[in-house]
Each structure stands twice: as C-alpha cells, then as structure tokens.
C-alpha cells in the first residue's frame, strides 16, 4: 500500500457527456464500480492510452503517462498496461498459443517457458493452445484473454467488465480463476464492473463512478448491502 500505484485525474467531453474523474489506486485490486454508461470504459481506455483525455494527468508508478500541461502522452504500445476487454478481443487468425505469446513478442521480451507454463496452468488453458479463438466457449475465451494480458508482464492490469458477456454459470466458473490471478500474479489491477457481487469477491478498494464523476472511493463498504445480494 502506501504510495499510489496509479493516479488518475482526467477530463473528457464525449459528445454531450462530460467526464471528470479523479482517483488513486494502490496495490491489489481496485474496482471501478458504477452503472452502465457512467463512463467507466472511457476511463479504462484513457489509462490504457487508447483515448486521450482533454485535460488532466495520468501517472503509473511515478511515471507520467499523460499530462496535458506537460504535453506528455505515452502511446499505448509503450505503456505496458495489460487490458482484458469485455469481449476478449482475441486475434481470430492466431492460435491460442500465438495469442498468448503475442504481447511478449511485441515487447521484445525473451521467451520465458516457466512463466508461460505457470500462467497456462493457473488459468487451466493448456488443452486449448492449438485451437483458434473461433472454437472457444465464452468462458475459455476470457481465460485466454487473461493469460494474454498477463504474459505481456504488465505493470498494471485493466479488466474491463471481463465477465459481462458471460451467463451466470460461466461467471461462477471463471471467478475462481480471477481470484487466483489476483493472489498469484502479483500485478495491481483495476477491475471495472457494474455488478457489486463480482467486486465483493475480487476487489479490496472501490471507486464509485456515477454520471462521469468519481462519486466516492473507499473500501467494500461503499457497495450497499442491497446491491451485494443481487448477483451471487
């Protein structure tokens, strides 16, 4: 804990919607929690470098990634921030093994057999390596997406509603893997969700996003009891 891992203070106008979000995240898992359309995904895209804020600053481990005052904007491919998207976004023309290896190759990192075996075992995807993403179930696809993001050795992992595209049974099937990921990967994570039930299982810190603003931040007590019981 102690020092902030991630500091975000950004403003962005998106059509009629205006976003002004400020929060800090420490190690472990921080949830960005809020209803659909509150601007969570835009925040994730700004942290990843896929969307430039109009104003503000984003810093990770003391390094400034974006600063409108200093005109800094580190491009996405140099940020080393792993992202798991809601729809997985696996490359359809590459096998699972090549998808998993993609980040490492693009970063120019040496091949690390032990690490890939560890991640593959952690996510239980060893039997899928030769398949193409088109032949995976939704749950398998998301597990591969976790692995792909993890194997690029990210400094931070952004999980953008990673379970939202799955039905309840698949969610329950994947959740244990997420918990393992949290406990064993040792990478700070931002977990975006509108489902309190997921967040309770994963996160330790919560930032509540409402209507383009960070309305509150603190511990799990921010999720009111009613919402907690809704999902699981």
């Amino acid at each position, binding site marked *: 804990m102690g020092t902030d891992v991630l500091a975000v203070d950004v403003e962005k106008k998106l059509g009629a919607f205006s976003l002004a979000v400020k929060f800090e995240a420490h190690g472990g898992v921080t949830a960005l929690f809020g209803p659909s359309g509150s601007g969570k995904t835009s925040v994730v895209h700004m942290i990843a470098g896929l969307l430039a804020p109009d104003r503000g600053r984003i810093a990770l481990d003391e390094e400034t990634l974006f600063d409108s005052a200093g005109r800094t904007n580190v491009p996405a*491919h140099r940020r080393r921030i792993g992202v798991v998207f809601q729809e997985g976004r696996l490359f359809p023309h590459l096998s699972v093994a090549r998808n998993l290896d993609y980040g490492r190759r693009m970063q120019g990192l040496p091949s690390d057999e032990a690490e890939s075996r560890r991640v593959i075992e952690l996510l239980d995807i060893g039997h899928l390596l030769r398949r*193409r993403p*088109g032949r995976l179930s939704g749950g398998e696809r998301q597990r591969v997406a976790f692995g792909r993001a993890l194997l690029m050795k990210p400094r931070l992992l952004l999980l953008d509603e990673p379970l939202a595209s799955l039905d309840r049974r698949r969610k329950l099937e994947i959740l244990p893997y997420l918990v393992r990921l949290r406990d064993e990967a040792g990478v700070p994570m931002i977990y975006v969700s509108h489902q309190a039930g997921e967040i309770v299982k994963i996160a330790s810190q919560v930032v509540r996003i409402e209507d383009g603003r960070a309305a509150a931040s603190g511990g799990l007590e921010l999720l009111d009891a009613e919402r907690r019981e809704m999902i699981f």
Partner: protein
Amino acid sequence: MFELTPEEWTAVRLSIRIATAATLGALPPGIAVAWLLARRNFWGKALLDGLVHLPLVLPPVVTGYLLLIWFGRKGPVGAILDNYFGIVFSFRWTGAALACGVMAFPLLVRAIRLSFEAIDGRLEDAASTLGANGLWVFLTVTLPLALPGVIAGLVLCFAKALGEFGATITFVSNIPGQTQTISAAIYTLTQVPNGDAAALRLVLVAIVIALAALIASEWFARRAGLRYHGD
C-alpha cells in the same frame, strides 16, 4: 486446330508476364493507398480517391495518351527515368505493364480498402495495448485479417491487366514479341483474312487463364477464411 503457333505462344507468355508484373507492381502502392483511404483522414483525401478511380471512368485511350505524354521518352517523367535510371517504358513490355497496372489499380485499391474497413478496429487497439507499434499492428493484425480481400484484389487486378487493351495499345502500340498481348493479337487477327481460327484459339486461352485465376483466388480466400473462423 488447338495447336498454338510460336507467335501465338509469344503473345500468351507476354500477356502473362505483363499482367504479373502489373499486379505485383501495383500491390505495394495499392495496399498503401487503400490503407490511407480506409483509415486516415487528411487534406486532399477526396482528391486522392478521385485520382485513383480516374482510370476506371476515363476512356482507356485517354489514360494511354496521358501515359504517353508523361512516360514517353520525351515526357517529363519518362525523360528522367531514361536519363538517370535507364528505364524506358515506351514501346516496351514494361510500358504495357505500367499501362495495365494503372488501369487495374482502382480495382485493386477498392477490394483491399473494403477489407480494411471491415476489420474490427478494436482488435488493433488490443494489439497496441500488448505492445505493438503502428507498423506491427498493421503487419500482424490488419494485413493478415485483410488477406481474403487482398487476394480478391490481386485476382481482379490480374484479370483486368490481362484484358487491358485501349491504354496499352495507345501507349506502347501493338508490336509482336514486344507489346502484343493476347488482346492485341486477337484484335490484329480479326483484322486480317483467315485470322478467325487463330483468334478463336487465343480466345480459348484467355478464358482458361481467367478461369484458372478465379478458381485459384476462390481457393486462397476459402483457406484464409477457414483460418479465421475455426479449425
């Protein structure tokens, strides 16, 4: 009846060589222009788009004549190429390839551009978060996913180049062994007495080559499609 004479074989070989050179030569600029038109907004984009499509709507004779003015030995571009690089287009098979490449260019660009536009940009975003810079995103994600469109464009380009007549004959004339393609040879044969049998033989050859190209492209495209959607 179906034995080709040596002159006819020359025309067939020359046609294939010209169409192949035109297609391969048009491919790199074709990919670049298609990408620009599909993915970038810049000043003069409409102009570039129009310019690329011009050979499709201009009378081929006009395109051929413009090529003659610019790329002929005395033309502004042709003179430079001749003096400094020793490259001559006029009345050579290379000139025929240039004319065919220019005429087929719009078809190539169109097919590739459509396939670029059909690619899910979110996959490219995902690649960049994984550490791929713009060039690597293009080489490892955009281009492989556009492959079926690129192949379709190549076949269209090849077929168009094979059949090109007006611009070629205007630019480089109709010299047997130099610039006389199948089309030009058929045209010549229809102008002389007793040329019908030979003309028909070349017509058959043209049909066979075109069909073979279509079947090959279909096969490649299906293979590429399989690669992306399962198996």
